[in-house]
């Protein structure tokens, strides 16, 4: 009789299952538009030239060793990360009220922030404090906050499927109606998975309500530099909120903009009212880190730190980032142009209006299924594609595949008792852990679902 006899088989994490299926597919024209990692025009991973350079410097430096980092991370990395997010001239940094925690990727930063909020944010037990994530959002957001102990994770309106853009009215309404002190996870730029960001005016409206209603700002910033190609432009929303006086968290990832995916380089920037509050906060975050991973890995932080703190390397990095962002922008332009040339039903402006690595194509699950099964083009069930998977060699095939999917599988698709895809995927992942009853009762919390059609516009 095993103690683990009753452990159920959990479904695989969707995005990784997609890659696994892709790998097993023998079709010569197969394309992977799933996982969010940059690819060159040869569809190869790209180690940034500046990263190669800095890694050589590190390996050749006989003075470096593999000793433990401090619990909160490499000091030079920490200060540089905050500066990248908040800007060189940041008044908050000058005031000594900005600090943070080096973490394992953006995920690790979110988790440390979430664990801290659950313990300390509004009183000492925040398990009942509502946490709002966008509908849809990166599917791991739900799990991070749930596993950190939050029992009430809710969607806020974000993606308007009908107009294929931001549901601003719905979003603002949710902000007005959220219980005070609720936590809101905001995507700083290049929203994942929709690629749809609020305009500056819209951010101002969001900020006004959040301030008035004492809502907590938790930014997820995984694509700084990657969205527009400009670090400062991509950080505008974050900096605006800081200048408006918010105390906030920013979970930063250097996975994409440094191409350091597997070294797990991230940072949780903490902006507090003053240095005294900051230091108590960091002291408690230390305790959380100590029981999670003790201290963070050094390699990735060294690479980022050396790069950000050296003017020449910093300039080279910015240009590497722009190379990636520019290629994505080019693919967006070309995909839209080809779909229009093919006469594919529907409007495709959203392809170029959306920003960052991902595009929410608007393809419905049946069309996605067709793309995968018939065309061997792998994308997420939500219709999300990774623009980086497009190349000059495969873009015609992809455009044609989308065209075929839309014309052959076009029908009014209504999600009745099905779940919002990205939230649903997370809940489906959790079914293996909790009972199906949880799945059903969560279904009632979700907004009425999208009607996606390419024949009505």
């Amino acid at each position, binding site marked *: 009789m*095993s103690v*683990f*006899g009753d*452990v159920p088989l*959990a*479904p*695989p*994490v969707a995005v*990784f299952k997609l890659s696994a299926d892709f790998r097993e597919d023998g079709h010569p024209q197969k394309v992977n538009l799933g*996982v969010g*990692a940059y690819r060159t025009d040869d569809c190869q991973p790209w180690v940034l030239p500046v990263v*190669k350079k800095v*890694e050589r410097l590190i*390996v050749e430096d006989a003075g470096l*060793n*593999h*000793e*433990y980092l401090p*619990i909160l991370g490499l000091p030079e990395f920490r200060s540089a990360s905050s500066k990248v997010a908040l800007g060189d001239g940041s008044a908050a940094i000058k005031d000594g009220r900005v600090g943070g925690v080096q973490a*394992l*990727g953006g*995920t*690790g930063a979110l988790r440390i922030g979430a664990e801290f909020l659950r313990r*300390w944010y*509004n*009183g*000492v*037990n925040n398990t009942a404090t509502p946490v709002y994530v966008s509908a849809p959002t990166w599917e*791991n957001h739900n*799990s*991070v906050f*749930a*596993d*950190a102990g939050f029992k009430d994770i809710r969607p806020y309106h974000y993606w308007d499927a009908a107009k294929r853009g931001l549901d601003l009215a719905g979003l603002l309404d949710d902000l007005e109606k959220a219980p005070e*002190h609720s936590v809101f996870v905001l995507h700083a730029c290049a929203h994942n998975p929709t690629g749809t960001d609020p305009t500056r005016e819209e951010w101002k409206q969001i900020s006004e309500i959040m301030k008035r209603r*004492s809502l907590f700002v938790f930014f997820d910033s995984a694509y700084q530099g990657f969205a527009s190609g400009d670090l400062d432009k991509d950080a505008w929303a974050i900096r605006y909120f800081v200048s408006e006086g918010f*105390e906030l968290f920013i979970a930063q990832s250097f996975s994409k903009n440094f*191409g*350091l995916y*597997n*070294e*797990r380089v991230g940072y949780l920037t903490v902006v*507090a*009212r003053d240095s005294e*509050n900051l230091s*108590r*906060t960091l*002291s*408690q975050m230390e*305790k959380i880190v*100590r*029981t*999670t*991973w*003790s201290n963070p*890995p050094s*390699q990735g932080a060294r690479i980022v730190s050396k790069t950000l703190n050296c003017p020449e390397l910093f300039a080279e990095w910015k240009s590497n980032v722009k190379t990636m962002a520019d290629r994505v922008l080019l693919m967006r332009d070309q995909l839209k142009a080809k779909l229009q040339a093919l006469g594919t039903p529907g409007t495709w402006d959203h392809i170029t209006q959306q920003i960052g690595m991902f595009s929410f194509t608007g393809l419905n699950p049946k069309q996605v299924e067709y793309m995968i099964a018939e065309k061997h083009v792998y994308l997420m069930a939500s219709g999300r594609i990774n623009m980086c998977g497009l190349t000059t060699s495969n873009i015609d095939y992809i455009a044609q595949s989308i065209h075929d999917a839309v014309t052959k599988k076009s029908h009014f698709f209504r999600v009745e008792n099905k779940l919002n895809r990205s939230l649903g995927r997370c809940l489906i992942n*959790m079914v*293996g*852990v909790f009972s199906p009853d949880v799945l059903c009762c969560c279904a009632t919390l979700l907004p009425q679902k999208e009607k996606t059609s390419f024949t009505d516009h």
Partner: protein
Amino acid sequence: MVVSLNLPIDHVSSWWGGVQMGPPDPILGVTEAFKRDTNPKKMNLGVGAYRDDHGKPFVLSCVRKAEELITAKHMDKEYLPIGGLGDFSKCCAQLALGADSEVLKSSRNITVQTISGTGSLRIGANFLARFHGGPRDVYLPKPSWGNHTPIFRDAGMQLKAYRYYDPSTCGFDFKGALDDISKIPEQSVIMLHACAHNPTGVDPKPEQWKEISDLVKKRNLLVFFDMAYQGFASGDIDRDAWAVRYFIEQGHNILLSQSFAKNMGLYGERVGGFTVVCNDTEEAKRVESQLKILIRPIYSNPPMNGARIAATILNTPDLRSLWLEEVHFMANRIIKMREQLVAGLKKEGSSHNWQHVIDQIGMFCFTGLKPEQVERLTKEFSVYMTKDGRISMAGVTSANVGYLAHGIHAVTK
């Protein structure tokens, strides 16, 4: 302990007004205090990080060679799977269980790469909290590594203890351990240090391990081994893994945490493994799927660098031989320092019995010093150590062992 302050939330001030200042970490806090000290004779005997005979951090040659090999391969930086680098997990399990292990042959283990030992323990603790049908209690030896308690507590488990260290002998309280273990409720989790017990350096002898195994089996307890010092204790990796392998042979389906921080000197790269020995492959697959569900919302997938180095070393024959030599060398230096410390104390004229300093094994020595004596040793001699009297022998060198003997004698005579 968190205390609710019931402070009114004042929106104009900070959200964090009610956040208490956390006390410094008892172990890592020692290093921070040490850094602030200006005494040229200061000694840091706090953290268990190996130092060479000049008191300097030691980067193993096999590590440097592995790094060169890796750099030359120009590999990409794509995400690892959630469970980590496959090559690493495989050789990590092999190292612990032995290449001829029946468990490995029948693929009834799941081994995932983790964020060193801490990350491994935390994943294990989270897994227990979620899936263990037995009592919520984890039984730790008394004393145990200071971080064990908060790790299990934060994961939602409760902590209890079984007698382990006998302060009157500075050795193993075998009778007390058996007595306490015999009373542990069935299906509870019992934590065992595989070798080089931290903080005492006191390990059971093989015959004692056998009796513990029998008793644990009788009580139907779930065994969780923490092996952070394989190779570092005796200098021999197979000898140090003996208890783990014996328990498995005896039919215990164990949980196992491994760290490569010390034995490969990869501290800051965070290299570790977590293993669950299951009944069969099917069960291992189910457990693996749930481990991934646990890991993904903590850090998504583990860091590559250290695991790549460790795997390269273990899988490249001449690097592996070099590694075994270097581990042996590190362990031997520690053993020599133990002998020199005892010799030094004799020379100082100490009348106490310091045999335990030589009998204890691994990086740490439980000196037997009381908190007041520790405080004096720190204040008067700038010798930094944890309050429980634990010293990291790795911080002792032939140059400072005499000074240490002098200080210890001064506060204990």
